[in-house]
């Protein structure tokens, strides 16, 4: 007779094997490796919770120590490859195949391992894309997750860094998978239930809190005049004319500079209330002065940020918080919000080519995508109108029918023409293409496709690609803001001048901005200490950002 519940039976067998090591659902930290050996099978798809920030570090170490005769060739399906242990798994043979989204701190090593054939690569995804595949063809057999606390029944409190946990648990627990949580403490009653107990099978109490990386903190002291000028151009050349209220900011000093110019430069332009009111954004400390000055109405977050807990708790009108008062973040929902409910994405990149394709992959670093491709893409399924969206759509297709013309999301790439160590931002050919050739990938890892990019802002000016009518115009528009890079110096000066007359390119002077005014005194906060002051002492920066 055909059985239709094989997976459930397998799950029950896994849980029964693990239960021999548990009291109720609780397993001692010292038994974590034995628990994994009992529950896992060779070749399993495993989500080892590596989020953008929160890391199931105890479970990573436990997994690394398994007996290879019992556990091997795992297929890791996790959004973030962040800890060294995540890659040690492949070196040791515990894992074989990888599907992921982001690998910031491990980007150099992951590149070496991919070239060396140590990792069989499935694909590099965007967050939403990987989450989507959790429900279709990459459903985890076992999820190893991290939470702040658990009660004896297994209800979990994830704290401000909820991040990916609800998505991972949903896909695993409701498809006959096993969920194992590491928690910082076991309590009588959790402050709020982020994950209900019946979706959690084992709890391991960690001897120290899970690792969280302060990814979204940029020290205002390190912001340059070039970044300030670029930020001024972005505010006056893009935010203001479109009246962008709903948006997402990428990480980086350029966007931090914009955040710190809102209460000063933005205020003088009379833009308060007209731009930057609703964000899909992590709790960036650099946004504190704008929040305190009454610019920001609402922020939904992918994750949290180290040191921002008390500030968020005290500003619940702005942030999403639980009944316990702490932030509730959710990466899948926030990515969806960024994709469908924001009119603009603005962020930095490492390379932009002549078509406007943008990539953070370089010859020696594969950083992955994270959320940028979703934030920085026109949502083809969008149907609600808004002023910036309609205006951008009209610029792209001035002759189209008003009622039938799609709007366009503003996708803005911002940066200085030369980056760190004088590496040019603009290139003839993306390193991503070379990488695809070398690794024999079907698809080059392009972060944002050129046809989604609407504006590029550098210290030389703003270019509006929506107004370009031919590929040649587009190329010259990009060269025209590429400064002294090779790409910029190979421009056709006559064509660039014509594009400037049409407003496709706008220089600082065209926007009434004097580069000599781009001064650090314009920043609402010039140091981390200033941010603490703005927050009324509620922001508690991690020690690496303290110098007092």
């Amino acid at each position: 007779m055909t059985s239709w519940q094989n997976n459930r039976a397998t799950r029950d067998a896994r849980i029964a094997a693990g239960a021999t090591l548990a009291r109720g659902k609780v397993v001692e930290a010292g038994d974590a490796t034995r628990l994994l050996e009992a529950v896992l099978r060779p070749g399993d798809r495993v989500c080892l919770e590596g989020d953008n920030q929160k890391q199931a570090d105890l479970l990573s170490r436990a997994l690394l120590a398994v007996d290879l005769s019992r556990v091997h060739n795992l297929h890791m399906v996790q959004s973030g490859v962040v800890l060294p242990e995540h890659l040690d798994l492949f070196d040791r043979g515990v894992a074989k195949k990888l599907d992921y989204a982001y690998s910031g701190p491990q980007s150099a090593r992951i590149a070496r391992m991919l070239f060396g054939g140590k990792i069989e690569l499935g694909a590099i995804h965007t967050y939403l894309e990987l989450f989507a595949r959790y429900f279709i063809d990459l459903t985890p057999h076992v999820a190893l997750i991290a939470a702040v606390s658990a009660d004896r029944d297994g209800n979990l409190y994830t704290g401000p860094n909820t991040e990916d946990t609800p998505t991972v648990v949903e896909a695993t627990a409701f498809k006959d998978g096993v969920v194992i949580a590491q928690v910082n403490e076991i309590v009588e009653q959790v402050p709020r239930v982020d994950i209900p107990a019946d979706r959690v099978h084992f709890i391991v109490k960690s001897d120290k809190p899970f690792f969280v990386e302060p990814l979204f903190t940029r020290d205002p002291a390190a912001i340059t005049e070039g970044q300030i000028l670029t930020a001024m151009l972005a505010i006056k050349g893009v935010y203001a004319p479109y009246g962008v209220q709903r948006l997402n900011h990428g990480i980086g000093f350029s966007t931090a500079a914009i955040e710190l110019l809102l209460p000063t430069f933005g205020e003088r332009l009379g833009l308060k209330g007209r731009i930057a009111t609703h964000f899909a954004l992590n709790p960036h400390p650099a946004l504190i002065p704008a929040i305190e000055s009454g610019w920001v109405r609402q922020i939904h977050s992918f994750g949290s940020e180290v040191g921002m807990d008390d500030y968020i708790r005290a500003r619940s009108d702005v942030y999403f918080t639980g009944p316990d008062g702490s932030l509730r973040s959710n990466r899948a929902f926030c990515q969806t919000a960024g994709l469908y409910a924001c009119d603009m994405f603005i962020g930095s990149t490492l390379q932009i080519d002549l078509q406007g394709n943008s990539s953070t992959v370089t010859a020696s670093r594969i950083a992955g995508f994270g959320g940028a491709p979703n934030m920085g893409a026109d949502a083809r399924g969008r149907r609600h109108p808004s002023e910036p969206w309609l205006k951008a759509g009209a610029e792209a297709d001035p002759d189209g029918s008003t009622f039938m013309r799609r709007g366009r999301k503003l996708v803005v790439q911002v940066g200085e023409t030369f980056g760190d160590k004088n590496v040019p931002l603009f290139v003839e050919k993306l390193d991503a293409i070379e990488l695809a050739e070398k690794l024999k990938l079907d698809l080059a890892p392009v972060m944002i496709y050129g046809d989604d990019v609407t504006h590029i802002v550098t210290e030389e000016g703003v270019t509006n690609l929506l107004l370009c009518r031919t590929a040649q115009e587009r190329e010259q528009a990009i060269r025209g803001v590429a400064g002294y890079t090779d790409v910029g110096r190979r421009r056709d000066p006559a064509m660039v001048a014509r594009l400037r007359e049409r407003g496709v390119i706008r220089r600082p002077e065209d926007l009434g901005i004097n580069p000599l005014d781009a001064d650090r005194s314009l920043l609402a906060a010039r140091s981390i200490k200033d941010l603490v002051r703005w927050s009324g002492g509620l922001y508690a920066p991690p020690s690496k950002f303290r110098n007092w």
Partner: protein
Amino acid sequence: MEDLSFQHRVRARADGTRRSALVGVVASGNLEVLVERVLPDEQCAVEIRTAAVGFGEVWTAVIDDFVERFSPGGLKFSINDGGARPDTVSLRLAQAVRLIAEKGR
């Protein structure tokens, strides 16, 4: 280290009466510019000492644009470069011209 030297003939004399001015700082990724009013009105000179080798073409383009834009006649610029980005170089040069144009010694 690399030493570069540029001489330009310019349209007009730089504004102001100040004899010299100093902008910027010597630091990695930054630069210091000393500007002195020591040349005939139709001349401009730029002397560069740079930590970043192989950017001669970029420097040429930056200095050409700068001279064209500001016509800094009579000025000699001495640049101590710590590998600054070209946009920072342009900004510092413009700052130097502004500073020496101010009233003062």
